[in-house]
Each structure stands twice: as structure tokens, then as C-alpha cells.
């Protein structure tokens, strides 16, 4: 299954705005996407799940997706996570 490991760029971590942009992109992709931080893995379409992982600036997370176009979707999601929306 395709994966990407990225470092979070936003200064306050994956809080409301970056989290919602991420979830929005996951939902729009129509693919099942999971987000893993440490030993916790969850549904990337769940904003509460994403927020409750407590992902901070500089944390490493792994994305994975399955289906047609999974690589392109993962590239797009990785781009969101490595952009600093608090700037």
C-alpha cells in the first residue's frame, strides 16, 4: 500500500484550519486514507481523530491510501501537511 512520511510544518501543529483542509482533501479524494502517528492509526476523514492525535509542529506522521490514483492523492495530502498555515 502506498505510503508517505512527512513532517508537520504548521507552527501550532495540526489544529483547526490545517486539520480541516486535510480532512477536506481526504473526503474529496474518495479514497480510504489512514494517518499514523507513533503507534496510533486512524481514519484520515475524521477531523476529531486527527485533532485528537495531538500532532504538533515538527512531528512525523505517515499517510497511507489504497485505490486508483493513491499516489497522487498522497502527494497532495503530503503537500498540505508540509505547508505552514499559521504563517
Amino acid at each position, binding site marked *: 500500500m502506498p505510503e508517505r512520511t512527512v513532517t508537520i510544518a504548521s507552527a501550532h501543529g495540526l*489544529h*483547526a484550519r490545517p*486539520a480541516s483542509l486535510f480532512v477536506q482533501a481526504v*473526503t474529496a479524494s474518495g479514497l480510504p486514507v489512514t494517518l499514523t502517528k507513533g503507534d496510533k492509526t486512524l*481514519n484520515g476523514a*475524521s*477531523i*476529531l481523530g486527527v485533532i485528537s492525535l495531538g500532532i504538533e509542529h515538527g512531528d512525523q506522521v505517515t499517510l497511507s491510501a489504497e485505490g486508483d490514483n493513491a499516489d497522487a492523492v498522497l502527494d497532495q495530502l503530503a503537500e498540505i501537511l508540509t505547508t505552514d498555515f*499559521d*504563517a
Partner: protein
Amino acid sequence: MTVSTTLVGIGIGRGLAVGPILRMPDPLPEPSDAASSQGTDAEKVRAAGALAATAADIRLRGERAGGAAQDVLEAQAFMAEDPTLKDDVNDRIDSGKTAERAVFEAFVQFRDLLVSMGGYMGERATDLDDVSQRVRANLQGVAAPGVPDPDYSFVLVARDLAPADTALLDLDKVLALITSDGGPTSHTAILAREKSIVAVVGTKGALSLEDGDTVIVDASTGVVTVDPTDAERAASVTALESRAAASTVPVGPGALADGTPIPLLANLGSVDKLDDAVAKGAEGVGLFRTEFLFLDSETAPTVADQEAKYTALFAAFPGKKVVVRALDAGADKPLSFLNDEPEENPALGLRGLRALRAHESILRDQLTAVANAAAATTADAWVMAPMVSTVEEARYFVSLAKELGVKTAGVMVEVPAAALLADRILAESDFASIGTNDLTQYTLAADRLLGSVASFQDPWHPAVLRLVGEVGKAGAALGKPVGICGEAAADPLLAVVLVGLGATSLSMSPAALADVRAELARFTTAQTEEFAELALSANSAVEARAAVLSAATPKHPNQHTESE
């Protein structure tokens, strides 16, 4: 109706309004944990319908609001349609609970999780409470919590307003705001100041008001008069008319009653708002934030790019003062090419001038661009460094600016150390400008961005004012200008106190100019100094404000009409 009662809070601005009140609807009570009588399938259908309808409703409100509010509301919409939450709700319904109870418990569980994480995540808990309330209101077919939307004008009474509420205020209908909680730097107060809404915040007893009560809200005194007598109503109408007449007086330069000029300048963050600032009578720009030139870029803009922007700015103020602040990155607004290392305490880290110094080529480019633009226009271009803490930093910045062709270079006073040594710092600089928001944050050791310590963020605090006074004294002794830029200068009465402490110019968001101009014109230099002494001798921000307000309020405000 012969006796009226009064409530007292903190007035924002100088406005006056009369009208019927409407309260924000009370929060819904916790739903009972009785077993469902409708069966699990029916409850699941109800819950799914309410969650989807709430998400759609929140998204629609976001689209209507636009801007930063839309981002917050979009995140809330995703919370309402969260798949993990929905699974959790369905599990609870399977165990025999009603849809209301299942929704309530599911949100509480996530809320507690966020609260336990603390900090910025913890503050998202309020968003979850709001979404939970809306879903349950939908399930029960009752009015959703939030700002009422009647077809007449009203005075809104609330505990405090959340950003989601204020984003949608219909300013044509809301005559005034009264809140029971919140201080002068609360979200409600900042919004009221920005949009020139009459507001009294932190009003004791405000929640005892009932829908339909008529009130007079006077922000200049912080007094709310409930069920006013006919005489009080008439007096307020007269006052409204005379203030309306006063506000149609053509805008002119700021000055005290004895003619002492106090230039009133605008705080700007982009060149888009220039026309508005000029129309409202800004005599120049006291703080031009340059961050917008750098946001969204992976690398710093070129000298030529920057020069074009500064030239447009200076050209709008021919012959006038324009103070450009060098790039202020870090803490609440990090830039990827300046703030490379994560920090535990960014507000105490490599920010402001410290970050620029670590990347001197960016600072050199910016100063060169400003100097070139100044040479091509007639504006009086000044440049200042953000977050200066030491005499050595002031010397470094000023000499670099002069080397690159800037004629007037100064420093911002935001760190208590810089205020305490203002005599030596000003000896090295052409001027100082006090950033009251950061000065308050550092003096009271309270994070500006953290709601839980918001009550400490009050520039009326005598400790902050004493530091302002140190800078004022140093400026007077050395004959150097001392400006104020920050929320404090937009509070008309505090602006008077700041002048008494030695501020020689005031810079604020353009919306605040008219009120501050009117307030300054009421007092002489001697009075501003008397008010400054009163504020300095108080023990707290609240006491300081009350003491100055009482000294500044005419003893018989209703006896100026000719009929009496």
C-alpha cells in the same frame, strides 16, 4: 415607570444606543439518560439526519461569513459529519440511548479528550460544545444557539460572544452589545472597536436582563440604564443627536483641548486599506506591517518587489510620516525561511529583530528597498525594528539602516528591558514606538494567544503604564518622538492617559480614529498628566480605568440641555 436601574461594565469606544434587548438563547440542558422509546433504527436515522443538517447549516453560515470565520466554521462542519463520531453515536444508540443522549455523550467524550491535551487543542473544546448544542437543537426542533435574527433592531446581551457568533452579526440590526464576561481585550471588545459597535463588556448583572427590556447603552461611561425614565430617554436622544453632529465635523489633525498637536496615525497591514485610512483622517501611518509581503513565500521577496510596494504606500501620503516596521516574524506568525528551528517558547525565542539579525541579508534587502522607495517619493519614511531588548540591538539596527540610506530609524518598545533602559535606547535611536500588546504580554507574563490568561492582557495595568511612562520621560528629556501602536491607542480614554505619560503620537486601526480624536479634544495637557498620575497610582487595571473614568466624566452629564 419612574425608577430605572443601572448596570456598570467596561465601555468600548464612546457610542450610545437605545433599544430593546434580546438575549443569546440559553444553552440546551443535558438530555436525560432515559431509554429510547423509538427503537435503535429510528434513533440512528434521527441522529444521522441531525448531524448532516447541522453540518450543512454550519457550512452555509461559513460561506456567508467568509474570511477567517469561514475556516473556523468549515472545521466545525467537519466535526458534525465526522465518521468516527458518527460510529460512536451509533454504538451508544445500540446500547439503548436516545439520539439526543448519544450525541451529547459522544461529543463530551471528544471534548474531554481535547481538554486533557490542553493548550491550543484544549481551546477547540468550545467549538465541539457549540456543534453538540446545534445538533441537539436540530433533534428537538428548537432554536439553535447563536445570535438571534429578528426583523427589528436590538441590543444583544450575551455572556460573551464566540468568533462564530460575531462573524455573523448583522450590523444593521445590532444597536449595541452587552456582555457579562470578557474584558477590554476580549474577542467581543476587539470586534466592537474594529466595527465601531457600541459595546459594554464585563457588565455585572447583564444576564438578569430579559428579552424586551429597554436599555440605554452608553459606552463612554460603561453604564447600561435599564427601563429608562422618559427624562433619561430624552437626554439620551439629545446626546445621540449632539454626538452625531460632532461626528460630522470634518476630520482634522489630532490635538488636545489646549491645542497641543497629537498626530493620529493609522496601523496598516497592506496597501489595500490606504484609501480608507486617508478618508478617516489618518495623518500618516504609524505602523506599517510588512509581513504580508513575505507570507506564502518560500523565500524572501526581491528588493525590486518590495520597493514597488513601499513606493505605492509612500505615494499615498505625500509629505506625511510613514513608519515601516521591519519584518516581524516568529511567535504567532512564523515564516519558513526565518524561523527554521522549532522552539518551546516562540514568544521568547528567535523573533523580531533577533530573527532578522540571524538572516541579515533579508534585513539589508528590506532596508534598501525602503530607502529607495523613500528617495522616489516625498513621504517622510521612518523605519523601526521589532522586538528590541538591548541598547546594543538598537545601535546595531540604527547604524545598519543609516548605512543603507534610511534617514530616520528607531525601535519598537515591546520588551520591558527596553522600556526600563529607554533613556539609553533612545539615545541611540531617532524615535521609539511602543507596541502595547506585546509589552503587556511580556510585563504580565501572559500569552496573548491563550484565552485562559486573557484577563492579564490589559494595557491599563499600572505596571504596563509605568513602563510607558519611562519611555515617555526619556523621549521628553532627549527631545525624541515616542509613538504608541497597539490596541491601547484605540481605547479613547486610555489614549488620553498615554498622552499624559508622554506619547507624542498615536497609531491605531483607522476605525478608531474618530473616537480617539474626539476624546483627545476634551482634555488639556495638564488633565492628561493628572489622569496619568491617577492611573499609575492604582493597584490594578480595573482600578486604573475606574479612577480615570470617574475623573474624566462630567459631574452632571444631563444638565447641559437648554431646557434645564
